[in-house]
C-alpha cells in the first residue's frame, strides 16, 4: 500500500538527526517489538536538569525513523519537566501530520523518550 508522507517526514527519513548511542548515557529507553517491525532506543545525557544531549537508534518503517529523529530535536535542550510533556500529537504535528496507520510510530517515539527519562530518574534514586 502506498503511504503518503509529508515533505518533512521524508526529509527526516533521508537525513535523520542525532543518530547513534551515547556511551555512559544518563538514561536509556527502548520500546517497540521486533515482531511488529519497529524498535526504538533513545539515549539522553542530562545536565542541570536539562537534556544536554540525545541520540536514537530505530529499527522500523519510514515513519518510525522520522518520528525518532524529530523527537530528539524537540527534546534537546529542554528541561526534564518540559520533555516529559512532549506528546504523541507534538511529534506528529511537528512532522506536518502522519497517515492514520502510522500514528503508532508517533506513540512509540514519545514512549521511548519517556522511558529514557524514567530510566534517568530511577538511576538518581
Amino acid at each position, binding site marked *: 500500500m502506498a503511504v503518503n508522507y509529508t515533505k518533512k517526514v521524508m526529509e527526516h527519513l533521508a537525513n535523520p538527526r542525532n543518530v547513534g548511542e551515547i556511551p555512559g548515557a544518563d538514561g536509556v529507553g527502548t520500546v517497540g517489538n*521486533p515482531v511488529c517491525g519497529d524498535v526504538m532506543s533513545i539515549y539522553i545525557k542530562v545536565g542541570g536538569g536539562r537534556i544536554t544531549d540525545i541520540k536514537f537508534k530505530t529499527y*522500523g518503517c*519510514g515513519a518510525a525513523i522520522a518520528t525518532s529523529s524529530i523527537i530528539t530535536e524537540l527534546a534537546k535542550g529542554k528541561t526534564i519537566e518540559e520533555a516529559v510533556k512532549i506528546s504523541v500529537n507534538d511529534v506528529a504535528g511537528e512532522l506536518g501530520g502522519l497517515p492514520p496507520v502510522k500514528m503508532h510510530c508517533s506513540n512509540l517515539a514519545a514512549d521511548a523518550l519517556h522511558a529514557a527519562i524514567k530510566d534517568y530518574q530511577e538511576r538518581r534514586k
Partner: protein
Amino acid sequence: MGRIYLDHAATTPVDPRVLEAMQPFFSEKFGNASSLHSEGTEAAEALEKSRETVAGALGAKPDEVVFTSGGSESDNLAIKGFAYANRKKGNRIVTSAIEHPAVLNTCRYLEKNGFRVTYVPVGRNGIVDLNALEKAVTEETILVSIMHANNEIGTIQPLGKISEIAKRRGVALHTDAVQTFGKIETDADKLGADLLSLSGHKIYGPKGVGALFVRKGTVLEPLIHGGEHEKGLRAGTENVAGIAGLAEATRICAKEMNGEAARETRLRDRLLKGILETPGSWLNGHRTKRLPNNANFSFRHVEGESLVLYLDMKGIAASTGSACSSLKLEPSHVLRAIGLTPEEAHGSLRLTLGRATTAKDIETVLEIIPGEVEKLRKISPMAGMSALEKKRLEKQPHGHGRHGKACD
C-alpha cells in the same frame, strides 16, 4: 539519472504496440459488440479475434476464454462461481497458504457461507507440500486452487503433480496464473487446469482487463448478472479496447517469451549473486523453480518499508513484504508460511525485472543496495541488541495495541 523500475510483479508499462492496437477502439471503432449493425459487428469481430489469440496462448479453444476486469475478478469467478454451481457435489475447497489475497479472501468469504477450506502448507522453499495436499483432498472436495507461481517469492508450483492428485479424486483444478501467463508456458492441458486466471497489466497490457480460462464442461455460476455477454458468465458491455490490448500483449509475449525469459533469468542471477554477498542477507523462495524475473531477499536488522523508501530516493522502485503500511500490521503471509520469523519477514525486499531492465541497471542497483542496507543498519538498534533484551521486547505490549489491534 533515470529511474530504475524493478516492480514488474506489481504492474508493467503498456507496450507501445499494445497501445497502438487499442487506439482504434475508443473513438473510431467504438461499437457495442452486441449491436447488429456494422459498428457492432466490427467490435464483435475484434472481440472474437482477441479471444482466439488469448486461447491460443493457453492451448485452449476460443469458447473456453471469458474476458473479465482482471486477475481478481477471474479468481473470484473461478472460485465462487465454481463453488456455487457445484455445491451439491460437496462443500470442501483446498488451496495453499501462500495464495494471492484474491484467492485467499475469496475462500475466507466462502467459509462464512457454508464451505470448508483447507489451506495446505508450503515448504521452506515455497513449494506446496504435496503429501499434505493429497491428504486434504477428500470425498467432499470439489475444487483445488493452487497458484502457478507466487507473486512475492516467484516460486513455481508443480502443477502437473497437483493436477494428478486432483484428477485422481475427480476434483477440478483452478490456478491463478497471473504471474506466469506470458512469462513462462501456460498451456492449460499441460498444467492440467480446468480454470486459469490471467491479467493484462502484468504483461505490458492495460489495467482493468483479464480473462478466465474455463475448460469445456466446467460449470460456473456468474457473479455479475445482466445481459448475455461472455456466454452469460459475465454480464456487461465488453471492454473491447482493453481486450484488444490484452490480445496484443499476449501475442507479443508469446513471440518473445523464450528469449526474454532467458535474458531476464541471466540478469536475475547476476542480481542474486551480487546481493547475496551482503552479510546477513538471503534469498526467499526456491533458487531455480522461480519466475525468471523474480528476486526476493531478506536483510537482517533492516525493515522493508524504510529500505524501499531509501531505494526510491535513489531512483529505484522496489517492494517489500513488510506490512508496516498495511492496516493489519502483520508481515507477508507468504514469508511467514515459508518459515520466516515476523522480524525476518519485515526485512524483505522484492525486485522484479522486466523488458526494460538492462545489465547496466543491475550493476547500478548492485552498487546502491548494499550501501542503503548499511545506512539502515547503522540506524538500527537490532544489530547490537542482546538476546535477553530482544526477548523482553518481544513480550512487550506494543503501540499498535492502543488502536485496538494486537500485533501478530
